[in-house]
């Protein structure tokens, strides 16, 4: 057996002890405040603590079953449906606009900096602040009562476009996604521009030499290179969408019509139903984890390979 040279423990400790010292407080904090508290929430969701008074009889998955089967007016299922509509519209909207803006700007433009700065500025504003103006823009009045964007539609003789925005019981959540799209398309654009600029110029030149049209060059050469960027953008926007809370609270307040799970948690806590709030939180966490965990694992593997 070949003798492996072992660094004596004391030397290793001297070399890495200080590193461990620097790192360990953060590790302990995250272990407690992320994983410890998640475990605590899961445990709480398995009890019958439905009032402010402490009681914690183990009831198994009852709270979860109740959410799907016995919630009044199917409130939880309703909030999941809202979340689905919101997420689809937000995701598609932000990705399409972000990609379009990046395409318009990627090869340089006059005043490129100005366009980029303006497209990205909503990112710097809080959802609470933008909610104030979007509530006004998405004024639900129509006809003589019209305000906000509906008034613009009237001015443009596009009265058929007038609509009640987020107050529509079926498609209100699609309107709720508009401010989110406004706020995050610029971010998607920034991701894509970085992606475009990472593609070597030689690839484009080679495509031109081979006689590819502009369309073919994008379709066959550029877009395939952007798949990782697209994936990142989808994951980031998708997980933000599932967590969306501030915007909805700010535009509509906590209302049934626009309720999503993250808001439902807050509403449930107001009634001190801790176990139920915990169960909703855990489902929300699972929804996010399903998206994020594979992505993180994939990224960490890719990094190790490189």
């Amino acid at each position: 057996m070949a003798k492996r040279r072992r660094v004596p423990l004391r030397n290793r400790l001297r070399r890495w002890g200080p590193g461990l010292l620097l790192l360990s407080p953060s590790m302990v904090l995250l272990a407690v405040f992320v994983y410890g508290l998640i475990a605590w929430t899961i445990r709480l969701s398995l009890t019958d603590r439905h009032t402010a008074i402490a009681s914690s009889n183990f009831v198994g998955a009852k709270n979860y079953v109740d959410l799907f089967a016995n919630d009044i007016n199917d409130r939880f299922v309703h909030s999941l449906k809202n979340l689905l509509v919101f997420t689809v519209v937000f995701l598609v909207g932000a990705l399409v606009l972000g990609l379009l803006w990046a395409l318009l700007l990627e090869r340089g433009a006059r005043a490129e900096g100005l366009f980029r700065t303006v497209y990205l500025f909503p990112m710097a504003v809080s959802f609470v602040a933008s909610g104030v103006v979007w509530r006004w823009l998405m004024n639900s009045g129509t006809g003589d009562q019209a305000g906000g964007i509906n008034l613009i539609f009237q001015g443009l003789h596009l009265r058929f476009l007038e609509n009640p925005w987020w107050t529509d019981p079926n498609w209100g959540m699609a309107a709720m996604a508009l401010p989110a799209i406004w706020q995050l398309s610029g971010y998607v654009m920034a991701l894509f521009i970085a992606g475009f600029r990472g593609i070597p110029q030689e690839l484009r030149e080679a495509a031109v030499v081979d006689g590819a049209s502009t369309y073919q060059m994008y379709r066959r050469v550029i877009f395939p290179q952007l798949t990782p960027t697209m994936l990142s953008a989808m994951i980031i926007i998708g997980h933000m969408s599932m967590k969306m809370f501030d915007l909805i609270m700010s535009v509509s307040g906590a209302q049934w019509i626009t309720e999503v799970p993250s808001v439902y948690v807050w509403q449930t806590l107001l009634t001190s139903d801790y176990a139920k709030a915990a169960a909703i939180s855990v489902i929300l966490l699972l929804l996010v984890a399903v998206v994020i965990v594979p992505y993180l694992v994939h990224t960490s593997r890719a990094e190790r390979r490189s």
Partner: protein
Amino acid sequence: MSTSVITPTATAGGTVRPDRRRRRPVTPRSATAQIVRYGLLILFLVIVLMPAYVLIVTSFKSGREIGVNGQWTLPKEWTTASWVKAWTALGPSFVRTFELAVPVAVISSLIGSANGFVLSRWRFPGADVVFTLILFGMFIPYQAVMIPLRQIVTTIGIPPGIPTLVLVHCIYGIPICTLIFRNYYATTVPEELIEAGRVDGAGLLRTFGWLILPISIPGFVVTIIWQFTSAWNDYLFAIFLSNTRNGPITIALNALAGAQSPDYAASMAGALITSLPTLVVYVVLGRWFIGGLMAGSVKS
């Protein structure tokens, strides 16, 4: 506004910068294509700026002018009455939010640089797993920790309001700050520098303090901006852990604007006041701001 994943090269804000060298178009473009292109760019510019126009114009209108008609027009008479009203409502929380966001930005960045340095140099067994576990912390919906968190901060007796929020933002800011610094150090600090330190007999802590920290400024700018903006714009932690009397400005704005029949002029002025600090940061330090955004997207 929350996290996304990181591009090491973009971390210092480099890649998204407009390229100074002009790229020559590979294919010549027709005049029509250019007109369509700039037409679209300007159209989107107008659409994106529309909410800003509404905010500014409405905030200077008097109460009588706020009616349904003439919503989009300029004020007939400009008045700052709504700004005064909004400032009266938001002033105290405006100051408190600085007391929140500044310490959070500084403390988180220091923690992040220490962690990031160790993780960028020390490939201990299972380092990838540990790093992934750290990163997961920045993606979780905070509702999943909020119920016990509220209980804990009450039990250990941290003063409610700003002190509690500083603690919480610092803890949950660890993942993103660690990530930004790890990528920054992995790509910008040459191994030779560490080696030189080692030859001179400097230990890890000395190397960090004397060799690394001085060249970490770009990383600090990115994390400070990121954490300042996140803490300033946060509403979720604020609503769970504070109230209008001791909380940050987002809570105060929501109280001002969220009433049944809100004063729109004052709400809009309030929204502008609330957004001003982060917008100033964005305009003045834009490239580093974008660096933080890119850092949210973990990959290379």
